[in-house]
């Protein structure tokens, strides 16, 4: 873990150059990946707010939560969980896919 912390050290520098993060309490949602499909395939979130989606990959294989609409690209290794932070979103539909199984893993975030 120490090596990893060292490897990630430049991130600290980058973040120090950026703005201090203002942690507003984000609303949380859960999503499961099972047999290369998202469950549920539709999530309704409040518009104009930061939202946290906990994605739990129950498959043995890794998946990439990918959405250019939501501006997210995140690999979720097999049998593990990943946190996807999105928003604030304008009202509308935002599609996402599991890039490694794009024919079955599809879903949509609806901001309202």
């Amino acid at each position: 873990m120490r090596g990893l912390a060292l490897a990630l050290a430049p991130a600290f520098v980058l973040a120090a150059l950026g703005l201090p993060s203002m942690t507003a309490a984000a609303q949380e949602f859960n999503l499961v990946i099972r047999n290369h499909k998202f469950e549920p395939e539709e999530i309704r979130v409040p518009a104009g707010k930061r939202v946290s989606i906990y994605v739990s990959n129950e498959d043995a294989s890794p998946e990439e939560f990918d959405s250019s609409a939501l501006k997210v690209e995140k690999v979720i290794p097999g049998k593990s969980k990943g946190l996807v932070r999105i928003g604030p979103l304008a009202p509308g539909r935002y599609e996402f896919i599991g890039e490694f199984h794009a024919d079955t893993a599809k879903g949509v975030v609806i901001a309202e």
Partner: protein
Amino acid sequence: MLGALIIVFREVIEAGLIIGIVLAATRGVRERGAWVGLGVGIGTLGAGVVALFAEAISSAFEGAGQELLNASVLGAAVVMLMWHNAWMARHGREMTAEMAAVGEAVTTGKRPMTALAVVVGLAVLREGSEVVLFLYGIVATGTSASALLIGGTLGLAVGAAFTALTYYGLLAIPARYIFAVTTVLIALLAAGMAAQAVQFLDAAGWINVLGQRLWDTSGVLPQDGIVGRMLHTLVGYTDRPTELQLIAYLATLAVMAALTRVAAPPRSARAAA
């Protein structure tokens, strides 16, 4: 097989476009092949390591490890590209003159290849780790290894061909202009990377401001399409940019321009050259 081909190809062209530009920008440097090769080699190794520790990275920093790693990799590449352009501003003129006078084969030019080799390595690391994870996933679910191998190899081959195409396309530019063109390409490349980096910091929850979307051109030129994807890598095209992304993009271009001006040799030296 097709799935493997498409994903591998997609990642390879992203790294390949960058390698093509680096090769064109270092035209005339004798050991550049070895440097770029070294970058690709170390990047590939790094991709394997990142893939191996994907889970640890993912859960580090309260679940933001992956985003922070991506932002760091992109940030480091931006700095390297700035260094390169500053160096070129200082020495590019002499090199162009030399190339015109004695032919490109003779220009030894003791140029620092380190910066661009690092950029190549970082690009391969970023795109490569996704390929490794994807291929590992296919093996884990028990798809036939031979289909995977064929698809992956084909994807790699098509991607490599694409890199060659980028390189030879750029080489068609007359020697007199090549450095001017690659300097602009590198500035745009860096600006695009900076815009991506701030988005990763936003996704990590480290930056929470200026996240409003400025425009949406996904209907006209989707970023997921082949053209959109290439423009994304090359000039940082984003179909739904946030305010912060645009600021990062423009700021990087401004810093590049300022560095180029500061690094340019004084007038007397220029006259002497």
